[in-house]
């Protein structure tokens, strides 16, 4: 294990109820690298994420974590009981007990939702909640970020923005990122390695390589693969979190 390695899985296998969920999966998560996990429903993506997080154990194989590894986890969906009154600030402080108010402010600003500090968690929209979860994952300065479909329920403009944000965070904090995502066309540019999972690892490597791999094409079909073609549609403006139009820097341009 090199000192850049954060988590290393060797031949991890797991069956649940007689069904093979994971079959001899290998992966390495390294400092500063972004690994994207793709695969059809029921491929074992979430199971693999849970094993990396230590929420589950494989039956065989080996999982080595760097000693003292701090993981920031962003679950697929978080539901906070409406009977539990909780501000966003408090929600983030729960993640890193002892975190100062200023620091909660800082991580929220970093994911560009500083204005939500005093909002109730149960009143957040889907997109706001995703960013607040990202802020909580960042709050205890993690070595590794594990994101399970971070852009779920976020509109297409928000998705691009969120993935850019994740990439910025990775560069700024120099942490490793493991991400489950179906939006390969959006994450392609930033991803160092793609693992295509369907119980076993079908193929892995650079995104360009994976999207041309016969195993990938067999799994997702040509049509899906075609959506990987460069995304050319551009808007002439963006929206900020509050939904207001942000004028592009070079004036109002029509394409």
């Amino acid at each position, binding site marked *: 294990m090199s000192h850049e390695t954060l988590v290393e899985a060797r031949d991890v296998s797991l069956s649940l109820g007689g069904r093979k969920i994971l079959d001899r999966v290998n992966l390495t998560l390294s400092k500063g690298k972004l690994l994207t996990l793709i695969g059809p429903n029921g491929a074992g993506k979430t199971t693999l994420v849970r094993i990396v997080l230590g*929420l589950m154990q494989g039956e065989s194989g080996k999982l080595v974590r760097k000693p003292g590894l701090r993981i920031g986890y962003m*679950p697929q969906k*978080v539901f906070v*009981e409406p009977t539990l*009154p909780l*501000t966003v600030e408090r929600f983030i402080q729960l993640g890193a007990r002892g975190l100062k108010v200023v620091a909660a402010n800082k991580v929220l600003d970093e994911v560009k939702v500083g204005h939500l500090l005093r909002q109730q968690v149960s009143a957040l929209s889907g997109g706001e909640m995703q960013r607040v979860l990202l802020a909580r994952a960042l709050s205890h300065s993690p070595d590794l970020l594990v994101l399970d479909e971070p852009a779920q329920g976020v509109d297409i403009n928000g998705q691009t923005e969120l993935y850019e944000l994740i990439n910025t965070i990775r560069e700024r904090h120099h942490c490793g990122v493991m991400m489950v995502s179906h939006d390969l066309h959006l994450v392609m540019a930033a991803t160092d390695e793609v693992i295509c999972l369907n119980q076993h690892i079908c193929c892995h490597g650079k995104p360009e390589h994976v999207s041309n791999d016969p195993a990938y094409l067999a799994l997702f079909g040509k049509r899906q693969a075609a959506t990987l073609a460069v995304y050319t549609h551009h808007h002439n403006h963006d929206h900020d979190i509050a939904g207001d139009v942000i004028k592009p820097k070079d004036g109002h341009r029509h394409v």
Partner: protein
Amino acid sequence: MYDFIIYAVIAGLLIAALAGPLGCFVVWRRMSYFGDTLAHSSLLGVALAIVASINLQLAIIISCAVFAAILLLLEKRQMLATDTLLGIIAHSTLAFGLLILSLSDMVQVNLMAFLFGDLLTITQQDLIWIVATCVVLAGLLYHFWGEFLALTVHKELAIVEGLPVERLYALLVLMIAMLIAVAMKIVGVLLITSLLIIPAAAARRLASTPEQMALGAAIIGCLAVAGGVTLSFYLDTPAGPSIVACACVCFLLIYARPVTRV
């Protein structure tokens, strides 16, 4: 004033003050049926204690702890849906408890006191049990408040962030079981859950942080005890139902106010 009233008031206020914050967790975690089951099963403990003639208070505490542990184990196994499991345990323990009580020829057993509480018969020894339990519970609650909150908000996030979630959850459940064990004297087996839930639910409307809700629930619970004991003293109504009725009135008054959004 009479000793028994002073004992009753002290015991009632102490238990209400702890039932407030612990009741918040019952509401947040949707455990109200869980509380009911523990309370019902403690009647089996009472019946067995009477047959074996051992200390009642001790028997209730032990049986609550044992059934809390059984529930935790069964919940982990997930053989049946939790509510089905709770229903089976709640009603079969209640049935067996009543069966054993009726077969034992102890005629002096006042069943009504166990079912609906008998606050005004609290002895000095009862009070010592209650004070000791409440002090321990208050200390634990204060110490683990942040941890309990984190595991209630999101279990898996808490695990990844390094909390020993399983052990904390077991502790929380045991603490609720202990409170139920000592509160049985106040409102009885059938009304205990209401002392946990009603003040917490009432306080929700007024709170914007978990701590405000916990404090509010404690205050509303104490008001209900004060009102209930007063009613009971002047109108000679049973104390347990009077307390629950007062809590319910507080709840209705708070929810009758129009919503003010900030």
